[in-house]
C-alpha cells in the first residue's frame, strides 16, 4: 500500500529540506539562553510560504501579524516536540531553558496559557509543570495563582462530572508536586478525598452501589497519576502514600468485578470476561509491578530532575480541600430501576478504552504493561484534543515523547476506538481520516501495520460483534477508496468457496458493495483483477429493473400513459383521480401500486435528486394509494424489486419515502421481517441497512425535537423577561402623576404611554407565541416518543417471532444450545494459554508470514446456526445502540417477551441493555 502514497511524498521532502536548513540558520541565535526566537519564527514563516506552493491560500497569517507576541506562545506550544522552533533539538532540558528564557518576561500574561497547554496537551504536562516551577522561583504569586486556579477547575470538573478534565487536572496536580509548586501532602489529601468518596459510593447503606462506575473512575484517576509522581510521593510522604495504597487495596477487595458483556467486541470472549481482570484490576496490577520496579517508566518524561537543584528552593502551596459530588442514594429498590441507574452511571463514567488485542504478542512492541497504558492515554488524548486539526493530530500521534516504537499499539488503539461500544467518542469517519493521515505520515511503517490489523480482524470476523462488523466494513471500504482500491485480494480469494453465509465471505462481499458505491462497478472489478474468483461476490451491475419493457407486459400501456401525464406536468390531484378511475376500479389497488411505483421510480431513476423531485411532486399520489401498513409493505416490495440490483438506491428510496411520511417506520419493520428478507439476514447487509436507517431516522427526529425544545425553553424564559420588563415600564409610566393646578395629572405624554402600552402588549404576544410553539413541539415530541415506543415493541415482537421459530430448543437440563462449534471452543482453550494471540478463529487457519502455504479453511457452522448467531447479534446491537430510548419502555417490553421467551434471545437483549443476566 505504501507505494501508492505518490502525491503526498513531495511534502515530506520539503519538510525534510527545511528541517535540515533550519538548524543552520538558527544556531547563532539559539546559543544564548534567553535569546528571542523571533528569527526562527519568521524563517519558518517565509519557508512556510515556500512550502505552501503557489496554488495554496496564504497560510496562517496570524503568525506574522502577531510577531514577537506569538513567539513565546509558539515556543510554549512546541516545548518538548522535535520541531523547527527549537531548531530540531531533542534535549528536553534545552527546550525548557529556551522556553523559560522567553517566558519569564511574559509570565504575567502566560498563566492562562500554561494551564491551557497543560490541559490540552496532556502528554507534555511534565514540561509545563517544570516551567511553572521555574517561574514560581521568580514570582511566588505566580505559583499560588496557578494552584488556586487548578483548585477551582478541579472542583468545577468534579461537580460537573467532566471525566477528561478531572483526569488531566489530577495529572497536572501530581506534576506540580514534582516541581515543588504543590505540597505532597496536598496531593495525598486529594487522593484520600477521592478514595473515601469511592468507598462511600459502593457501600450498600451509605452510598449507592449502582454508581460503582463513578467510584471505579476515581480509583483509576488516582492510579493513573502514580507513574507521574509515585517516586516523589514515596520519597517525601511515605507513610501517607502507603495509607492511600492500602485504601485502594481495600476498595478493590470490596468492589464488584465488572463484567460487561454488552461492550465486548469479540463475542467469543464473553465467557472469558467473567474470569479475566477488568480494567481497574488490570491497572492495579500494572501499578504494583511498577512499584516493585522502583517506579521506573520509560514513557513519562521527567524533566524536573534536571532542574531539581533550582526547583527545590521554590515555595510550595497547599491546595484547598476539594469535595466530590454525592451520588444520590437509590430511591427505589426495584431491580429494573437500580439497573437503569447503573446503566446511566456507566454512560456518565465510561471506561475509556476497551483494549482490542489484534496482533499476536510476538508482533506487538515489547513494553512494560504500564507503558502500554500510558501510551494509550497519550494517543487517546491527542485524538480527543486534536479532533479537527488533521496536521497536528497526525504529527503528535506519530511523535509521542517515548523512547520506543509503538505503531502496532497505535493501530490497536485506533481500531479499539472505531469499534468502541456503544458509541465511539467521535464518528468512525474521524478515525478513518486519522488512519489515512498516519499512513501518509509514516509511509514506511504504518500501512503495513494497518494491513496486518485488517488481516487479523478478518480472521476473527465471525466472532466480531455485528455492529463492529458494520463499522469495519464502512471503514475499510472508505480507507481503500483513499488508496486507489489497492488490496491483495488474492489472499482472500478462497472465501468464494465458503458457503454463502460464512462471515468472511459476507464481509468481502459487503466491502466490495461499499467500494462500488464509493466508486463504480468497472473500477472495482478492475481492482480485484488479481482474484478473478471474487467477481462472483461483486454486487450486480447497477441497472434498474423496470417491469414494463415490452408491449406484452401487463401494465405497459398504463405505465406509458402515466408517464405522459407526468411529462405533461399534470397535478398530483389529477393523477390520483386518473389512478382511481383507470387502474383501481378496473384492476386492483395492488396493481395500481405496481404501476405507479414502477413508473415514478423509473422517472426518478437517474439520480438522487431526480428521485426527490418525483417524490416531492407525486408523493401525494403514493400516499393516497398506501394508507395502511399492508399497502405500504407492498409499496416497499415494489421499490425493492425495481432496485433489486442496487441496494443503495433501494435504501435511499425507502429512506426518503419515510422522510416524506409516505411510509411509516412500522411498515419498514414489517417489510424487513417478511420471509424473503429473513432469508437474507445472514447472507447480506441489505435488510439490515434498511432497518438501521428506519430506526436511526426515528431517533434523529426525536433528538432534533429535544434540541428544539431546549432552545425554545430558553426563548420562553427570555420572552417572559422581556414581557415583564415592558409591562413594568408601562405601569411605571402610567402611574407617574404630576400635580397641575392642584389636580393630579398624568406626567407622561399620551404618545409615549401609548407606545409603551404597545410594546408591553407586543412583548406579551411574543411570549404567548413562543409558549405556543413550545407546546406544539412538546406535543410533537410526545407523539414521536409514542411512535418510538411502538417501533421498539414491533421490532422486538418481530425478532421474538423469527427467533423462536428458528432457535434450537433448550435441552432438558436447561443448558443453552450452542450455536458455535464445539471445536471452536477447544481451539479457544488452546489459545488461552498464549494470551493476546489472534488465532482463536474457526473460519480460517493460521495465516503466518512464515507459513505462507494455504491452510485448509475450516468453516463448519450450519446455515441455520449462522442465521441465529447473526440475528441475535443484531438484537444485541440494536438494543445497545438505542438503550437509552429503550430503558423507559422496559416494562412494556417485558410484557412483549413474556416468560417463555427463548433464553438466548433474552440474553442478547439483556446484554445489549447492560442488564445483568444473573437472574436468568
Amino acid at each position, binding site marked *: 500500500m505504501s*507505494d501508492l*502514497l*505518490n502525491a*503526498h*511524498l513531495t*511534502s*515530506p*521532502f520539503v*519538510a525534510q529540506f527545511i528541517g535540515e536548513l533550519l538548524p543552520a540558520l538558527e544556531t547563532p541565535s539559539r546559543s544564548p539562553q534567553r535569546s528571542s526566537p523571533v528569527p526562527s519564527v519568521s524563517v519558518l514563516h517565509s519557508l512556510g510560504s515556500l512550502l505552501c506552493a503557489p496554488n495554496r*491560500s496564504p*497560510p*496562517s*497569517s*496570524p*503568525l506574522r501579524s502577531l510577531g514577537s507576541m*506569538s513567539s513565546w*506562545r509558539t515556543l510554549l*506550544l512546541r516545548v518538548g516536540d*522535535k520541531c523547527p522552533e527549537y531548531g*530540531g533539538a531533542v534535549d528536553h532540558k534545552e527546550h525548557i531553558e529556551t522556553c523559560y528564557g522567553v517566558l519569564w518576561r511574559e509570565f504575567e500574561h502566560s498563566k492562562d*496559557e500554561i494551564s*491551557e*497547554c497543560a490541559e*490540552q*496537551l496532556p502528554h507534555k504536562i511534565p514540561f509545563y509543570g517544570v516551567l511553572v516551577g521555574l517561574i514560581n522561583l521568580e514570582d511566588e504569586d505566580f505559583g499560588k495563582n496557578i494552584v488556586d486556579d487548578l483548585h477551582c477547575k478541579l472542583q468545577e470538573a468534579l461537580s460537573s462530572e467532566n471525566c477528561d478534565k478531572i483526569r488531566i487536572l489530577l495529572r497536572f496536580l501530581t506534576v506540580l508536586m514534582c516541581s515543588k509548586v504543590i505540597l505532597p501532602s496536598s496531593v495525598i489529601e486529594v487522593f484520600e478525598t477521592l478514595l473515601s468518596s469511592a468507598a462511600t459510593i459502593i457501600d450498600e447503606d451509605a452510598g449507592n452501589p449502582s454508581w460503582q462506575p463513578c467510584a471505579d473512575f476515581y480509583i483509576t484517576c488516582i492510579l493513573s497519576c502514580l507513574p507521574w509522581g509515585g517516586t516523589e510521593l514515596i520519597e517525601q510522604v511515605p507513610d501517607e502514600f502507603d495509607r492511600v495504597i492500602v485504601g485502594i487495596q481495600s476498595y478493590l477487595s470490596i468492589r464488584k468485578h465488572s463484567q460487561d458483556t454488552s461492550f465486548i467486541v469479540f463475542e467469543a470472549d464473553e465467557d472469558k470476561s467473567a474470569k479475566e481482570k477488568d480494567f481497574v484490576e488490570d491497572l492495579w496490577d500494572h501499578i504494583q509491578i511498577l512499584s516493585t520496579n522502583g517506579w521506573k517508566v520509560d514513557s513519562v518524561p521527567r524533566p524536573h530532575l534536571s532542574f531539581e537543584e533550582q526547583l527545590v528552593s521554590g515555595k510550595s502551596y497547599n491546595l484547598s480541600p476539594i469535595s466530590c459530588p454525592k451520588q444520590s442514594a437509590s430511591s427505589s429498590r426495584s431491580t429494573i430501576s437500580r439497573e437503569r441507574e447503573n446503566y446511566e452511571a456507566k454512560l456518565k463514567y465510561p471506561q475509556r478504552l476497551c483494549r482490542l488485542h489484534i496482533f499476536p504478542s510476538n508482533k506487538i512492541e515489547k513494553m512494560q504493561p504500564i507503558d502500554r497504558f500510558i501510551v494509550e492515554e497519550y494517543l487517546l488524548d491527542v485524538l480527543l*484534543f*486534536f*479532533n*479537527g*486539526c*488533521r*496536521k*497536528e493530530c*497526525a*504529527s503528535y500521534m506519530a*511523535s509521542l515523547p517515548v523512547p520506543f516504537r509503538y505503531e502496532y499499539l497505535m493501530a490497536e488503539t485506533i481500531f479499539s476506538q472505531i469499534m468502541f461500544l456503544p458509541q465511539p467518542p467521535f*464518528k468512525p*469517519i*474521524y478515525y478513518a*481520516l486519522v488512519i489515512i*493521515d498516519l499512513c*501518509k*505520515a509514516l*509511509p*514506511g511503517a504504518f500501512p503495513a501495520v494497518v494491513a496486518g490489523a485488517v488481516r487479523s480482524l478478518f480472521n476473527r470476523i465471525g466472532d466480531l460483534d455485528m455492529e463492529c462488523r458494520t463499522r469495519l466494513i*464502512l471503514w475499510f471500504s472508505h480507507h481503500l477508496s*483513499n488508496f*486507489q482500491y489497492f488490496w491483495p485480494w488474492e489472499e482472500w480469494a478462497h472465501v468464494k468457496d465458503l458457503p454463502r453465509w460464512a462471515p468472511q465471505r459476507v464481509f468481502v462481499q459487503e466491502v466490495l458493495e*461499499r467500494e462500488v458505491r*464509493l*466508486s*463504480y462497478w468497472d473500477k472495482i472489478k478492475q481492482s480485484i483483477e488479481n482474484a478473478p474468483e471474487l467477481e462472483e461476490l461483486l454486487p450486480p451491475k447497477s441497472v434498474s429493473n423496470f417491469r414494463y419493457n415490452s408491449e406484452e407486459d401487463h401494465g405497459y400501456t398504463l405505465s406509458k400513459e402515466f408517464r405522459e401525464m407526468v411529462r405533461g406536468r399534470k397535478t398530483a390531484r389529477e393523477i390520483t383521480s386518473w389512478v382511481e378511475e383507470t387502474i383501481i376500479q378496473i384492476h386492483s389497488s395492488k396493481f395500481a401500486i405496481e404501476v405507479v411505483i414502477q413508473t415514478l421510480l423509473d422517472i426518478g431513476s437517474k*439520480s*438522487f*435528486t431526480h428521485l*426527490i423531485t418525483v417524490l416531492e411532486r407525486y408523493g401525494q399520489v403514493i400516499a393516497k394509494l398506501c394508507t395502511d401498513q399492508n399497502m405500504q409493505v407492498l409499496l416497499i416490495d415494489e421499490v425493492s424489486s425495481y432496485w433489486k440490483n442496487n441496494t*443503495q*438506491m433501494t435504501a435511499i428510496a425507502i429512506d426518503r419515502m419515510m422522510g416524506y411520511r409516505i411510509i411509516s417506520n412500522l411498515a419498514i419493520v414489517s417489510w424487513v421481517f417478511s420471509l424473503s428478507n429473513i432469508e437474507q439476514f445472514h447472507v447480506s447487509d441489505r435488510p439490515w441497512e434498511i432497518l438501521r436507517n428506519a430506526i*436511526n431516522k426515528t431517533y434523529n427526529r426525536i433528538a*432534533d425535537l429535544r434540541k428544539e425544545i431546549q432552545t425554545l425553553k430558553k426563548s420562553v424564559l427570555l420572552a417572559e423577561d422581556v414581557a415583564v420588563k415592558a409591562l413594568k415600564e408601562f405601569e411605571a409610566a402610567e402611574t407617574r402623576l404630576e400635580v397641575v393646578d392642584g389636580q393630579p395629572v398624568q406626567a407622561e405624554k399620551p404618545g409615549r404611554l401609548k407606545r409603551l402600552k404597545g410594546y408591553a402588549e407586543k412583548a406579551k404576544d411574543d411570549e404567548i407565541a413562543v409558549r405556543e410553539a413550545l407546546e406544539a413541539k412538546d406535543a410533537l415530541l410526545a407523539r414521536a416518543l409514542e411512535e418510538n415506543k411502538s417501533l421498539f415493541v414491533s421490532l422486538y415482537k418481530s425478532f421474538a417471532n423469527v427467533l423462536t421459530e428458528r432457535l434450537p430448543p433448550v435441552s432438558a437440563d436447561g443448558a443453552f444450545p450452542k450455536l458455535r462449534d464445539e471445536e471452536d471452543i477447544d481451539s479457544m482453550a488452546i489459545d488461552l494459554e498464549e494470551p493476546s494471540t489472534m488465532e482463536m478463529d474457526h473460519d480460517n487457519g493460521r495465516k503466518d508470514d512464515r507459513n505462507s502455504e494455504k491452510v485448509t479453511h475450516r468453516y463448519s457452522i450450519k446455515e441455520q446456526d449462522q442465521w441465529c448467531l447473526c440475528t441475535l447479534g443484531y438484537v444485541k446491537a440494536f438494543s445497545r445502540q438505542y438503550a437509552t430510548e429503550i430503558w423507559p419502555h422496559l416494562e412494556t417490553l417485558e410484557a412483549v417477551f413474556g416468560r417463555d421467551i427463548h433464553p438466548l434471545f433474552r440474553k442478547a437483549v439483556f446484554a445489549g441493555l447492560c442488564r445483568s443476566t444473573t437472574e436468568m
Partner: protein
Amino acid sequence: MASLFKVAGFGDPAKLSVYRDKRFRGNQEEYERALQASTTVYIGNMSFYTTEEQVYELFSRAGEIKKIIMGLDKNTKTPCGFCFVLYYSREDTEDAVKYISGTMLDDRPIRVDFDWGFEEGRQWGRGRSGGQVRDEYRTDYDPDILLVELDVISLTRICFLIIFKVLFFGQFWIWIIDCMLSSVKII
C-alpha cells in the same frame, strides 16, 4: 481544540475558507455569521463523472443528508466538478468539513467548505466557458491536503521515498501503457 493553536496559526478547525462568494448580498460579518450557522457544504475539485450517489455514500458517513445539488455547466447542463450537500444538523455539517475535506472521492482529493446556503441559480458554473471558474485557470487544483512535516527523516527513509516514487512512477507508466494497449484492443 486549543484556542492557543488558533492564535499561533497552527491549523484551526473552525477556520473559514478565504474564499468569499461574490454573490452573497451582505457584509463580511454577515457572511461569516451565515457560514457559522450554515448546514450546507460546498464540495470542490470533484471529477466531472462523480455521481450524486457516490457523494451520498461518502457524505452520509458524516450524518443524515437532506439534499444534494450538483454544480452544472451552464451551457451543457452537465456536472462540472462541484456540488452542495445539505445536512439536517450543524454538527454533521462541521464533521463533513473536518473529516472529508482533503480526502479522496473518485480518486480525486476533494475540498469541502462551509457554504452560506444554497439558493436557486448557484448550481450553474460561473466560468466564462460555463464551467467552474477554477477550471479555466487550473486544471489540477490541489486543495489543502495534509502536509505533515516529518520531524526527522533519516537519509535511509529518503532513499526509501525515492524508491517508492520510482516504483510508483514505474507502475504509473506500466498502467498508462496498459491502458493504451487495452484501448488498442478495443479498437
